[in-house]
């Protein structure tokens, strides 16, 4: 990444990590990338939204539930993951409250092909409404890899103001892991902008409760 010198990147991360150490919090602080855009009009330019897949998991405590066929449920069990099969879903009897509670228990869902097609019929739009509709996991895909993939994927969306926050790591990660995550997310987001770096006004990183440190 030519625009930001490696040394500067590392020193910023250092500052954020040190800041987090100084004032120790009860919880594991997330590290966020804050992006300020310019030369971009949310009313007429193409929407800036999507998902980034990071190389290192930024939110390790993410709870995933597998809605699977026999094969995937067995695998899930062996990985220590919560799971449900078609019968398990039928047991909800389309009870909205129960389904809502179920959706709240987990951050994300994975589902086998055969089951994912049946979800509207078995559960109705409950998972849709909760923003937790499952991601497909195919027969041949390794379940453990898929779970890691889900945990490493971050959603970003610019609404009406010209700034965006993206979680890129946490204070328990090593400096080089944070560097990897930052480089990838910055390059990816810049590549989606029409004028690339000309659309970036400012970049900051910070820990959840810490002070922002200017990166660009």
């Amino acid at each position, binding site marked *: 990444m*030519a*625009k930001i010198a490696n040394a500067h990147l590392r020193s910023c991360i250092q500052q954020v990590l040190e800041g987090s150490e100084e004032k120790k919090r009860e919880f594991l602080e997330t590290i966020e990338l804050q992006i300020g855009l310019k030369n971009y009009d949310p*009313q*007429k*330019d*193409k*929407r*800036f*939204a*999507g*998902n980034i*897949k990071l190389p290192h998991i930024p939110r390790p405590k993410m709870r995933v539930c597998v809605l699977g066929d026999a094969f995937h449920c067995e695998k899930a069990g062996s990985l220590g993951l919560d799971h449900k099969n078609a019968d398990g879903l039928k047991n909800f009897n*389309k009870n909205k409250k129960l389904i809502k509670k179920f959706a709240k228990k987990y951050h994300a869902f994975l589902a086998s*092909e*055969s089951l*994912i*097609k049946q*979800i*509207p019929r078995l559960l*109705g*739009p*409950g998972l*849709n*409404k*909760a*923003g937790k*509709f*499952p*991601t*497909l996991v*195919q027969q041949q895909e390794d379940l453990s890899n898929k779970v890691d993939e889900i945990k490493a*994927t971050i*959603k970003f*969306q610019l609404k009406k103001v010209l700034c965006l926050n993206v979680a890129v790591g946490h204070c328990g990660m090593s400096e080089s892991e944070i560097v990897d995550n930052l480089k990838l997310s910055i390059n990816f987001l810049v*590549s*989606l902008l*029409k*004028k*690339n*770096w000309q659309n970036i006004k400012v970049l900051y990183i910070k820990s959840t409760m810490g002070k922002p440190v200017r990166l660009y």
Partner: protein
Amino acid sequence: MECLDEKLKGLSIARRSRPEEPTYLLHVALQPTSLLAVSCSNFTIHLHNKDTLNLVGEYQGHSGPLCGVTFAHSSPDLLYSGSADGTVRGWDVRRPGTESVQMFKSDPSHSYCSFDLSCSDTLLCAGTEQVNDEDSFLVFWDVRKPGGGLLGVYSESHSDDITQVCFHPRDKDRLASGSTDGLVNVFDLSRGAEEEALLATCNSDSSAGSVCWSGADYTQLLCLSHDEGLHLWDLGQLDTDEPLTIFSTSDARSLTPLADGGGVDYLVGGRWLEEAQKLLVVGGKNSGDLHLMECDDKGLRLLRNLEGGHSSTVRCFLWDATGEALVTGGEDAQLLLWKPGGEELTTGKRESMKSQSALRLKSRPHKKHGYQRQKKAT
């Protein structure tokens, strides 16, 4: 009969509309007899003659960004437009410059970011932005009822801005909706209540930007996401053991259908071409070059490059099957008509009509490959 490949190979710019004002051309719709309607980022709608691209009229009245324009199917004098100002309006194209003749609204908090009209011209549906950080709605009106005809809303199937609403081209009760929550929902409206009507939910695992029906009997759905992902699903497999996904990529820019071994910078959209029985996907480079591609289970295959046309991002296109012409519109305020063997006709003011890119080309007379622009090093 000439196949699609040949028709596309012969395309060149036949007409170029002169940019009056620096506005983005965001959506374009065709009235098969003679007109093109274009929505602009300054909240107006422009009507053009589809063969000469001459401006024949303008409609003002919307007070917020437009989310689409579409002509009624059987009464082509009626043009509909939707807007974030919370209205879907009907305009009489025989009287440009006049007020809207129909207006559809719902709850004052609703701001529309998509809309469509059913193939039977009876049902209008608009997708709203997220309201109160929680809900987003699909709003339905019966077009025939005077005074608005609000039928109701669906509120459970999406959790974020509904960016595309697309009625099935043949089945008046079938509807697909896409949202920034990543989901593409398919409904059978004849079943009434939302829970019964929801037939399928497909997950793009990103933020859905555009959705269109595809395939021989329109049983497939193409979804393009805002971060340049592409998904093609076959709804015919809903009740079988076969997977729904025909082709899927989280980043279409990593595919390499172009001659130089590279990919496009962004995707504009897709359209099923009935005559050719192919799915056309249009992609572009930030320089303004366009690439027409075909999409199937193997991915994207290049059909034709269109250079020297636009000088900035292209936002909309359509294929006029009867006229065998491609129309493209973009952020450079230009509306272009591409026809086989089209020779750009200029009328005196040649210099001012040339796009910025063409002017730049002129100043480099010895450049070997005139139409290739060098990528700016970052």
